[in-house]
């Protein structure tokens, strides 16, 4: 393993059984992800991008193969260990933001810290710091409905960073945004990556892939092509 390899995926299979047909969402995937890289998964709909993302994030477990993250095989973890893995290692950004509508921006950002047992004062300070970083210092007490889509996604990014994760995962984070706010979000992700944050994105959008250092193309549950960004 290269010294900078953060994640090593080997022989991953994930099959879904629907009635008497089997959907091979992932059908033998091998992939290494380097510490500090910003890569994206591309491919047509149904090619298995989200499935791979969910396995990386510990939301799902593979039927076969191993996913070694920071020296630990997460495919063998039980539910409780997976929860701890998600809490300590992973930050998620979703296409549809998934903010809690009754909570303010600040409460949404500090929500994950409740489960890591952070003290209330510290949660507030950390939430403010993160919102400030994504440029929403003046929107702390706004509910999601009082924010634009781009602002909501920035809140969601701040939340994903709350527990200082090793990997930031984004499943089409710009999918629900217009191109201008999409660019804002991508700029922000690039800035994070420049500070050393490992980022894995799923996207259909070729413009998103311009921000990444590596693009992986998938089809029918397999990786078909890997291209490095022109430097």
């Amino acid at each position: 393993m290269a010294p900078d390899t953060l994640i090593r995926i080997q022989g991953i299979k994930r099959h879904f059984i629907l009635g008497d047909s089997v959907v091979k969402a992932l059908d033998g995937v091998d992939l290494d992800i380097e510490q500090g890289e910003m890569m994206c998964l591309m491919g047509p709909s149904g090619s298995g991008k989200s499935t791979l993302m969910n396995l990386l994030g510990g939301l799902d477990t593979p039927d076969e193969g191993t996913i070694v993250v920071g020296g630990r095989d997460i495919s063998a973890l039980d539910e409780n260990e997976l929860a701890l893995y998600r809490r300590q290692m992973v930050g998620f950004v979703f296409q549809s933001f998934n903010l809690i509508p009754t909570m303010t921006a600040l409460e949404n950002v500090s929500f994950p810290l409740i489960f890591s047992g952070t003290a209330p004062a510290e949660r507030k300070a950390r939430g403010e710091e993160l919102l400030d970083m994504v440029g929403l210092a003046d929107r702390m007490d706004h509910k999601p409905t009082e924010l634009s889509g781009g602002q909501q996604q920035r809140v969601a990014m701040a939340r994903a960073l709350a527990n200082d994760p090793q990997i930031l995962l984004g499943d089409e984070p710009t999918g629900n945004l217009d191109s201008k706010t999409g660019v804002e979000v991508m700029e922000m992700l690039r800035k994070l990556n420049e500070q050393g944050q490992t980022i894995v994105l799923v996207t259909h959008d070729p413009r998103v892939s311009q921000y990444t250092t590596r693009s992986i193309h998938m089809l029918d549950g397999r990786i078909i092509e890997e291209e490095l960004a022109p430097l």
Partner: protein
Amino acid sequence: MNFRDLLRVVWSNLNRMRGRAIMTALGVVIGTAAIVVLIALASGLQESATGDATAFGPVNQITLLPGAFFRAFGAPSGGDESVLTPDIIKEIGRREGVTAITPKEQVAAPTTIKLNRLVGSGTLTGIDPLVVRDMGLEVERGADILGNWTVIVGAKVGESFVDPRERSGTQVQRNGSEEPLDLLGQTLSVSITKLGDDGKPITRTVRLRVGGVLEETGSDDYAIYMALADAEDLTSWYSGQRPDRRNDGYSQAVVVVDDTQQLLPIQRELEDDGFFAFSAQSTLQQINILFAVIQAVFGGIGAIALLVAAIGIANTMIMSILERTREIGLMKAVGATNRDVMSIFIAEAGAIGFFGGIAGVLFGIGAAKVIDVIAQAYINAQLASSGSTSSDPISIAIIPIWLPIFAIVFSLIIGLASGIYPALRAVQLDPVNALKYE
């Protein structure tokens, strides 16, 4: 997640579904209030039935009847030895924990009791003169000595004397004053009439000197205690033969115990020996058992109401979990463990039960007080119309201290329990699907 954060999260979750939470809690309020009111009523009844424990007689005495009496009521035979012969009475008197025992024989003959021209009544009762003190017969005035036709009368025997020439039922007032007749130091004449061998009535009259008057007890105020030998003398004369106590035994005996705590075991032992035994304590115990049953039945009615409320809580929680599916997915994605998710939903359900319980207890106490006031007014009106005045206010509803605590803890438990199934459903949600849920 620590407990304080759990409470914080639960509080804000309940706050956002406030309307529905309150509606759901109303079921608990009604159930808890029903439990409080019904048990308060049962306690009030029990208190008015057993509040004055001394009315049931002395707490350190057991009255014994021979087993034959027992069998006369169709009860299974208690053994043939259960006859109160002098030997057996002596044997019982020597038993551990028994202070004293005496036969208790009422004079088995029609008697007329007179004081000069006044006619009175009283139960002529013979007891062993040696046990007067042990039996706790407290003389208010005079001496506690029996024998040689000296007697001790109950507190109200004096009141029974009337002048037959005056209107019937008119109570005699001595010298026209309000004082009831004082029998102390008086000599009562007691006459017994029977038919002689020749068919002609013969009358025997004895003079009883009243040596003492008992304090009012509520149980033997109309008794005239005399020495057993004197009572036996009268009974023998009337029947023409001495009763064969060695074989037939006495008709009743009173056992006095050292320690009231040990009374029930001793009573039990005597019952096992085949005697028919009863005591103030065992009577109270039976009444208390009856009321415990009433309380349980009443409490059960309230518990059914709470059970219905529990179904309501479970239903509300399931609804809320459906609505919050994405949120549950998110909680899992940001690292909430199954235990965290479980705790949150069980605690939400428990909080609905808990707050419903508190409101129900307050509501129930209020309702019990209202019932009490109304009942009190009704009783007083009844008493006023019947001409008597109430001595003590009677409480219809009494709230024992354990009741509010029990009711609140019970509703909390009901709430927590009804949260288990919904919480399990929340835990079992697959985070990937939950996050996609529309």
